[in-house]
């Protein structure tokens, strides 16, 4: 099953994963002056996270219903500014409980 081609494939994957990670960080040393770009970069983390969370979270477990409940619990706990681990554990627990009754 393992051939030179599969090893090459993994190395190519590693390279095309590393390059976008490294290019800006290693070559971009100056602080950006443009207020628009600075504002843009200020919003990037929230924009990335928003798009990464939704709608993917709905399909992150076996049952969409359970995932939706988990989502609400996570939002509630996060709104109360609970610790990261508490938020994660809370939603895992709710999904587990929910799927216990819903799945199979």
């Amino acid at each position, binding site marked *: *099953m393992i051939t030179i081609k599969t090893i090459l*494939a*993994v190395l*190519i*994957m*590693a390279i*095309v*994963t*590393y*390059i*976008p*990670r*490294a*290019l*800006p*960080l290693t070559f*971009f*040393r100056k*602080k950006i002056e443009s*207020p*628009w770009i*600075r*504002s*843009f970069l*200020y*919003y*990037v*983390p*929230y*924009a*990335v*996270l*928003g*798009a*990464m*969370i*939704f*709608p993917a*979270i709905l399909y*992150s*477990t*076996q049952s969409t219903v*359970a995932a939706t409940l*988990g*989502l609400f619990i*996570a*939002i509630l706990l*996060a*709104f109360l*500014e609970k610790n*990261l*681990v508490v*938020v*994660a554990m809370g*939603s*895992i627990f709710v*999904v*587990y409980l929910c*799927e216990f009754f819903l*799945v199979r």
Partner: protein
Amino acid sequence: MTEVHKNKTKKRNNEFKTGCKKGIPICLGYIPVSFTFGLMAVQGGFPPWFPIFISITNLTSAGQFAGLQLILQNSTLVEIGITTFIINIRYMLMSLSLSQKISPTMSFLKRALISYGITDETFAVSSMEKEELSFGYLGGLMIGPIFGWTLGTSLGAFASSLLSDRIQSAMGIALYAMFIALVIPASKYSKKITAVLFLSVFLSCLCTWTPVLNKIPSGWKLIVATLVSAGIGATLFPIEEGQK
């Protein structure tokens, strides 16, 4: 050792420790995901060392899953390279964003090392920090996740019965819940951030659920949603210096 020197070393140690602590939840969240990856690879007929080799060299989720699928389908190397590259272009935005948060004097080698550990999750946690990011902090932050990603893959490859289907499924929500925990407190105090957040969620849903737009490869969806929503945010609500 002079007093100044001692203080510097102490500060560095503290930054490293803070980073390590913040990396623990990411490490735990990675285990079920990489577990699934190890399991899938072995079920696909590969020896256990193979998925571990992929996890160490790639350290990414979506790209690895897609890559493994393509290898199993016997796709060409060009196809594998292009597909995984498209999935990973998002890292350029994260890397650019981080480049503005680290000290301009950090050496090339340190930057090259840090780059390896940029993932959606380490980016999410470090970009929520208010202060300048040091090498010690970032290194500490990345060690746990790298370990968890490798450990999970190994467990999935060698001991696939360790996590039951139910627990695996429930833990699938962990990383998303973590993202929510990172984003909500910030948006609670800023209407501008809330607006950008809702906009990107809306665009991401649009790209997933509407015909034609749902043909966009998933790697691009995230980029389109990010560029457009952060761009609109920067145009409508520019940030004054020192206002953050």
